[in-house]
């Protein structure tokens, strides 16, 4: 993982932020100048005040410097917040765009959750990094340089001492930092595990309660939380100790400068104004370095999110741009010795299969046997490891997936419903559908009674992930989508799984209406779907065998 305080990939990947970052650097230079100007004016003011006089130009200079610094603080904040907003927006678009580029196969499973969190709230951690840490990082370079230059002009020997001691801060910081970082890293893993346990326990409370163990588990939670505390304190002790060492190094350095200045002043070898200037400026040289170091840990979350976002969105997209002409969905589909291997398992082994236009094919087999992979191949979510899938003789691997998918209607096992109105959810594939066609699809999918029961009918806005609809109702929404798609090839993945008998009957009837007159592949978990299939395929351990159907009626008799 990237440990550098500034990730250079940022400049390349978010060009829109370059100008603001340059402005930020420039503001850092001006800020350093103003620190020097304010100290100079204050030193002059106090040196004359020593004689009981008010140095009006110095007072005016002080007020002007303060006003300018105030303006600068505002500008720094505003610009850094602008950088944060720009970078976050750009990375969000890139992250979500990566999903589009790579396709659903890439995003499936755990990555979906990770990406959603990162693109959603995860990137907001960058605010602290850009507005808190980065300006401080700039100042930690510009301010020491400016201070050193100004003191050199006033009193070169003091400047020399500062120049020699200043590097001690980053050196000690690095030495202590490495130690602390290794310790922190080890602890972090432990802490997140412990935090996770609290979450796990809370999530499993109903089950604990069912076994009468909820109260007993309180003690376990207390012990886990206590372990968390002890581990955290161990980490903190190291972190605080390194902060203490750095502070002492800075203090001793200031003392090294101040003692000779005081003695020379006492001996008359130095003017009061110069001495005051050195006293006021010297701590400023050490401060920004320490401040940046202290804020580094706080900005870690942001840097981690940044690193994750830049890495994830940078993974190269699927190999070749597939722009070939898409075949006609009404043509014959052939699987020619298709093998699909995933990281750990082989989903399909050497599958050869022909699907004639208009055929209704049911696919059965135990879960995990490769049924969904078969549909994934046709959807273009999965590419064969070897062999090929052709439609009307055209290899799907070369066809433009967008155009090809227009020939498909897909009813997945668990359709994703979007945080939008029910109508928009149904119109997913055809946003310009007129109301009449929409109403027809709703009727065909047996969704009309559901719509009637909703407060705003079709205009009802669904919660996140379709919250508020039952499994059976969701499934009918997916069917309505498919009806609206009106495609020659229909792919259904266990459309009646998780439904009770009554909903199953409704969904089944709608499914029959949908597949009429189309080529259909139907993954069937429940037997009720098999009765009107032309052929039944059984997949087991990645191999496909064809079953000879026996008319149901004969069996019963």
């Amino acid at each position, binding site marked *: 993982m990237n440990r550098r305080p500034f990730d250079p990939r940022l400049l390349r990947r978010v060009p829109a932020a370059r100008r603001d970052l340059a402005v930020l650097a420039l503001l850092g230079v001006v800020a350093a100048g103003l620190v020097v100007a304010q100290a100079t004016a204050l030193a002059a*003011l*106090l040196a004359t005040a*020593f004689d009981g*006089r008010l140095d009006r130009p110095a007072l005016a200079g002080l*007020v002007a*410097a*303060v006003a300018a610094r105030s303006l600068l*603080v*505002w500008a720094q*904040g*505003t610009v850094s917040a*602008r950088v944060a*907003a720009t970078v*976050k927006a750009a990375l969000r*678009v890139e992250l*979500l765009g990566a*999903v589009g580029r790579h396709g*659903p196969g890439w995003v499936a499973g755990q*990555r*979906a959750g990770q*990406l*959603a969190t990162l693109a959603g709230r995860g990137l907001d951690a960058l605010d602290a990094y850009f507005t808190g840490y980065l300006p401080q990082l700039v100042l930690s370079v510009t301010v020491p340089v400016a201070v050193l230059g100004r003191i050199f002009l006033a009193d070169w020997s003091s400047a020399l001492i500062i120049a020699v001691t200043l590097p001690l801060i980053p050196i000690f910081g690095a030495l202590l930092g490495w130690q602390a970082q290794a310790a922190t890293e080890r602890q972090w893993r432990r802490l997140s595990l412990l*935090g996770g346990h*609290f979450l*796990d326990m*809370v*999530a*499993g*409370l*109903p*089950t*604990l*309660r*069912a*076994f*009468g163990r909820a*109260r*007993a588990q*309180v003690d376990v939670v207390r012990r886990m*939380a*206590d372990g968390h505390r002890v581990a955290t304190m161990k980490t903190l002790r190291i972190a*605080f100790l390194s902060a*203490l060492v750095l502070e*002492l190094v800075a203090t*001793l350095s200031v003392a090294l400068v*101040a003692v000779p200045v005081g003695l020379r002043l*006492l001996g008359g070898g130095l003017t009061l104004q110069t001495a005051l200037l050195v006293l006021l400026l010297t701590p400023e040289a050490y401060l920004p370095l320490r401040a940046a170091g202290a804020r580094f840990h706080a900005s870690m979350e942001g840097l981690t999110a940044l690193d994750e976002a830049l890495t994830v969105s940078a993974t190269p997209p699927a190999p070749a741009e597939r722009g070939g002409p898409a075949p006609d969905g009404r043509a014959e589909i052939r699987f020619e010795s298709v093998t699909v291997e995933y990281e750990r398992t082989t989903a399909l082994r050497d599958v050869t299969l022909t699907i004639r236009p208009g055929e209704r094919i049911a696919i059965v087999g*135990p*879960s995990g046997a490769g049924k969904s992979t078969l549909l994934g191949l046709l959807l*273009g979510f999965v590419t064969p490891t070897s062999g090929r899938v052709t439609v009307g003789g055209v290899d799907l691997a070369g066809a433009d997936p967008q155009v090809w*998918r227009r020939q498909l209607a897909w009813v997945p096992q668990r359709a*994703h419903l*979007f945080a939008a109105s029910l109508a928009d959810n149904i119109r*997913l594939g055809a946003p310009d559908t007129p109301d009449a066609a929409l109403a027809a699809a709703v009727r065909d999918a047996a969704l009309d009674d559901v719509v009637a029961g909703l407060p705003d009918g079709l205009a009802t806005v669904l919660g996140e992930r379709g919250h508020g609809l*039952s499994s059976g109702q969701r499934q009918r929404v997916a069917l309505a989508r498919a009806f609206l798609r009106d495609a020659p090839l229909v792919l259904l993945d266990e459309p009646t799984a998780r439904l009770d*008998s009554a909903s199953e009957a409704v969904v089944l009837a709608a499914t029959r209406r949908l597949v009429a007159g189309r080529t259909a592949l139907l993954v069937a978990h*429940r*037997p009720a779907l098999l009765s009107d299939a032309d052929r039944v395929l059984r997949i087991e351990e990645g191999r496909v065998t064809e079953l000879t159907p*026996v008319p*149901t009626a004969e069996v019963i008799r």
Partner: protein
Amino acid sequence: MIAATRPERAVLRLARPYLNRLLGAGLLAAVTEFAGLALMATATWLLMSAAGRPPLDRLTVAIVAVRALAVSRGVFRYTERLAGHDAVLRLVTDVRTRVFAALAARRAPEQRTGDALSRLVSDVEAVQDLLLRVLVPASAAALVSVVAVGAAALISPAAAGTLAVGLLVAGVALPALATALTRRAAAEVAPLRGALAADAVDLTHGAADLAAFGATGSALAAAGQRTARLARLERRLAATGFAVDAAGVLVAGLSAAAVVFVALARDVDGVLVGVLAVGTLAAVEVALALVGAARQRTQLSAGLTRVAALLDAAPTDTTPTAGPTEATAAGAAPGGEETPAAVSTAPHHVRFSDVTVRYREGAAPALVGFDLDLPAGRRVAVVGPSGAGKSTIAAVLTGSVRPEAGRVTLDGRDLSAYSAQELPRAVGGLLAEAYVFHASVRDNLLLGRAGASDDEVAAATAAAGLLDWVREQPDGWDTVVGEEGGQLSGGQRQRLALARALLAAPGVLVLDEPTEGLDPAAADAVLASTLAATPPGHSVLLISHRLSGLAGLDEIVVLDAGRVVQRGRHADLVATPGWYRDQWRLQEAAERGYFALTP
């Protein structure tokens, strides 16, 4: 704005045991800040006095003071941070435990989504931030300000007045402004961020649906527009937000300038003017920490409110270790010696008499006038379409839902007379929300019955059809199942939960859809072995939407819309016109067709 809000008071009440530690930390923080201020002031005094070339011994005390202050400031800061974090982390441990205890004490939990759960975790951390980043620095700043004004008054009351004005602006007016601005910004940004989070969920979890229907492009464009709008809003809000920080710098500088002006007008000694000026800069800087504290406090308020609501709802008996059964996560002996003698595992007699359940007032009842006699050893199935009220019966029986009317008795005593510890010994099993913990297979199973022997565990696992899988795993019983059982398939998770229920072996075994997620052949096999593994004398209440495998049961109750529409044995029901016979024929035809198709 200084008075503590209600949720803050609720949290602070919990902090009472650590009050001394916290006060110590606050005091140390004040001393640290004061040491810094005194260091600058003394050093200035030293330097300016030196310019008058006094004899060296007049400066000795100041020289020693500067050295002492310089070193002690760092040490004070170190001790303060350690003491503060130690106290606060102790408090957070308590809060976590109490939050869990409060949740555990609820009989009927509301459903929580994953997001709400992780929010709960970060809400608890808000307690930590309230003390460490708000209360401790704020009280230190207030204390230092008072001392600084007092010290300045010894030199020049007029200058002290000027300093006080500067401190009030920096420590009261600006924090109030920052609070208002932060609150407004949060109100404006929150809905947009929420919408964007929903977009992110839709584009990732719904990626396949979008791609299949060619809608990826338009969804991306919509999310892109929202992203741009959020960015514009954030930029605009930053411009006002940082104005407060700018004002802080201005206040510090102007206060110092004003103090010099006022002090010189009152003919204060030149050296002391310098001390006042440098001290003012340092003091206002300390007071400005209140701006950050105010912002932090505003951001914490939502989380604290939720935590306080949870703690308020906790029962009066919040002593978490008061329960009689102090078993560990898994594996420790059940606290047999203190087990209430009244409840043993079997046999039991359950009776529902005219039970009606309504989840919300005004809503249709989920169960109407339900009667059921379940003496020891009897096995009953409840079937019916989804939403008929089947799971409500399980919820009533396990005590998580109370009937609106009617009575449920266990061995003649009303169910509500049994405590949350007693009831699960008699009644339990596989409920709808069965959760698999991020722990080993063994620990998950032993949750059903701590102290079960290896043979008992193996027998229950075999009955659920999971034993072969466990034996195949390299780590065997120690295989960790991953978060929310993520390393398991849906079927395996179901079997694990079923095995745990069988191991618990309560006298009244409730099985809510025990074979969900299994294919028909596996479902029949598992149901048969489950019923066979249940000891005689234990009664079974089986809830199912599948009708196969019910022939051996003593009674089948058909529910529809909360009412019993049919009841009897399987043989009678298939011979009687009605829902059961229709459904049976439908299923039978389909499944026999299926089996005929299997070579």
